[in-house]
C-alpha cells in the first residue's frame, strides 16, 4: 500500500485583508480537486495556526464538502504538512481512499507586522519575536562557523531570483546582496529582506492510493516529529536537531540519500533557517552551507536547487498554508509543470517544514516528506 499526490492547488499569496479565509480556501481546494480529477473527498485534514474556530468547516461547506470528517490541526509552521502527514497516515491505515489536506491562514486579520508574542510562551512573553529567535540562532551560527551577514544575504538573493519566476509568489523582484543588507534591520543580523512576508493564503493537496494515473506523484516517505528538549545541553542552534532526526527517519523510509534529491523545498522563513536546514538535512557539512549557496549549486540550473519556488522568503509565509504550498511546488516540478523555474529532469523532491517557538523545545513540529521517483 502506498499513497500518491493526486492533485494540488493554491490561492494567490498576498496580503488580502479584503478576502475571507474561506474564499482563499475555495480557490486552493477547487484547483486541487480539478487537478486530481475528482469532485469530492472522504475526509479533510486542515492545518491552521491562527485560524478561527470552525474556519475549516465554513470554508469547505462553500464547496459542498459537508458531512465528512474534518480534523483541524495546529502545529506551528508545520501545520499544513502535519495535515498532509495525517491524511496520508489515514489512507495507509485503510480509513479512506481520497483525502484532502488543506492549509488556511489569514494573517493580516491578526497582525500588522511580525507575528506577535504568544502570551503563554515564556520566551515570547519576554519579547522574543520570531525574527529574534532566528537572529539568536544566526548569531551563534556565525560565531561557530565564521559566517558573515553577506552569507545570510545570499540566501535571500538566490530565493528572490527564483521567486521572480514564480507567478504565485508574493515578492516577485530579484534583489541584490546590497539591497538585502541595506534593508531595514529587524533583529541583528537579520534585515527585512531576510524575513518572509506576512501573507494570506490557502493551499491544498488531494491524496489517494495509486490509481495508474501518470500525473500522480508517489509519496515515498513522510515523518512528523516534535522537538526534543532544547537547552544548555544542546550543541546546535535551535531547530537543527529536530530537522536532522526527522529527515534521517524520512531518508530511511524513502530509501534515498541526500545526494539523490533533485530539488528541495525547505523552511526559509528567515535566511539563516535555510542554511541551518541544509546542514541538518545532510545537504551541506557543518558550516559549509554558505559556501555551497555561493557556488550556485542550489540555484535553478545548479546541481541541486533549493527552494525553486522562491521559498517562503518570496512566496510569503501564511503559516498553515506554507507546507502544502511547498508540496504543490514539488509536485509541479516533478511533473515538469513549473514553467520558467522548472528544474530540469526532476524526479525526486524533499519538502521540509518546521516551526514553533523555542521555550526549551527544539521546535514544536517538523515534517519531512520525500515524493517522486
Amino acid at each position, binding site marked *: 500500500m502506498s499513497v500518491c499526490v493526486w492533485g494540488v492547488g493554491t490561492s494567490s499569496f498576498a496580503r488580502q485583508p479584503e478576502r475571507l479565509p474561506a474564499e482563499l480556501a475555495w480557490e486552493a481546494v477547487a484547483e486541487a480537486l480539478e487537478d486530481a480529477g475528482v469532485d469530492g473527498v472522504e475526509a479533510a485534514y486542515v492545518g491552521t495556526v491562527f485560524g478561527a474556530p470552525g474556519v475549516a468547516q465554513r470554508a469547505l461547506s462553500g464547496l459542498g464538502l459537508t458531512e465528512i470528517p474534518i480534523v483541524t490541526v495546529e502545529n506551528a509552521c508545520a501545520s499544513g504538512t502535519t495535515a498532509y502527514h495525517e491524511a496520508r497516515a489515514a489512507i495507509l491505515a485503510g480509513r479512506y481512499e481520497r483525502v484532502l489536506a488543506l492549509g488556511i491562514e489569514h494573517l493580516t486579520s491578526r497582525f500588522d*507586522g*511580525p507575528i*506577535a*508574542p504568544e*502570551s*503563554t*510562551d*515564556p*520566551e*515570547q*512573553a*519576554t*519579547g*522574543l*519575536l520570531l*525574527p*529574534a529567535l532566528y*537572529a*539568536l*540562532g*544566526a*548569531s*551563534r551560527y556565525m*560565531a561557530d562557523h565564521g559566517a558573515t551577514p553577506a552569507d545570510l544575504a545570499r540566501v535571500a538573493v538566490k530565493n528572490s531570483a527564483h521567486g521572480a519566476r514564480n507567478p504565485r509568489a508574493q515578492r516577485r523582484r530579484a534583489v541584490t546582496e546590497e539591497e538585502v543588507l541595506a534593508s*531595514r*534591520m*529587524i*533583529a*541583528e*543580523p537579520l534585515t527585512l529582506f531576510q524575513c518572509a512576508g506576512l501573507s494570506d493564503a490557502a493551499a491544498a493537496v488531494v491524496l489517494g492510493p495509486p490509481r495508474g494515473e501518470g500525473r500522480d506523484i508517489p509519496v515515498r516517505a513522510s515523518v512528523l516529529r516534535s522537538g526534543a*528538549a532544547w*537547552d*544548555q*545541553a*544542546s550543541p546546535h*542552534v535551535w531547530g537543527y536537531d529536530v530537522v536532522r532526526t526527522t529527515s534521517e527517519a524520512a531518508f530511511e523510509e524513502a530509501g534515498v540519500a541526500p545526494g539523490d534529491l533533485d530539488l528541495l523545498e525547505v523552511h526559509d522563513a528567515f535566511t539563516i533557517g535555510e542554511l541551518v536546514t541544509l546542514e541538518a538535512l545532510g545537504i551541506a557539512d557543518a558550516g559549509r552551507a554558505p559556501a555551497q549557496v555561493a557556488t550556485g549549486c542550489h540555484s535553478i540550473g545548479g546541481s541541486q536547487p533549493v527552494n525553486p519556488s522562491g521559498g517562503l522568503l518570496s512566496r510569503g509565509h501564511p503559516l498553515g498554508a506554507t507546507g502544502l504550498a511547498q508540496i504543490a511546488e514539488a509536485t509541479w516540478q516533478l511533473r515538469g509543470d513549473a514553467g520558467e523555474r522548472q528544474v530540469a529532469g526532476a524526479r525526486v523532491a524533499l519538502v521540509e517544514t518546521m516551526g514553533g517557538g*523555542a521555550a*526549551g523545545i527544539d521546535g514544536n513540529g517538523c515534517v519531512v516528506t520525500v515524493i517522486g521517483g
Partner: protein
Amino acid sequence: MTAAATDAPGRSADPRPVVVGYGGRHLLAGARCVACRHALARVVPRCSRCRGPVEPERFGPDGVIWATTVVHIAAEPGDETPYTLAYVDLDAGPRVLLRLETGGARATIGDRVSLTAPTASGSAAAELVR
C-alpha cells in the same frame, strides 16, 4: 514557582522565568533533576531530558552569553527599541532567555553576565559584567 493568577480576560498567568532577590543578589528559581542532575529553567513535574523527578534549585546570578541579538522592532506597542536579548547559560545551571542591559556596549557571545532585578514589565534580565 506559582505565577500570579490573573483576573483580566485575555491575559494568562505569567509564564516567564522567575527571578528572586536573595541576599542582595538575583537568582533564577529553577529546578534540578534528582536522577540525571540536569538543570531546568523552571519547576516542572518531570525532567525534560530523562523524565526523572525534580527538586527546586536556585541558579546564578552569573552566566555566559550563548547567543544574542539586538531587536529593532517592538514586541508590544510602546516597547522601547532597540533592546538586547540573549540566551544565557547560567553557571552550572540552565539556559535562559534574558533581556540584557548593556549600558550602550555591544554584547557578544562568551561575555559574562549577571542576573538583575526583572524589567519593569517583569521579564527576567541581566547586565554585562565588566
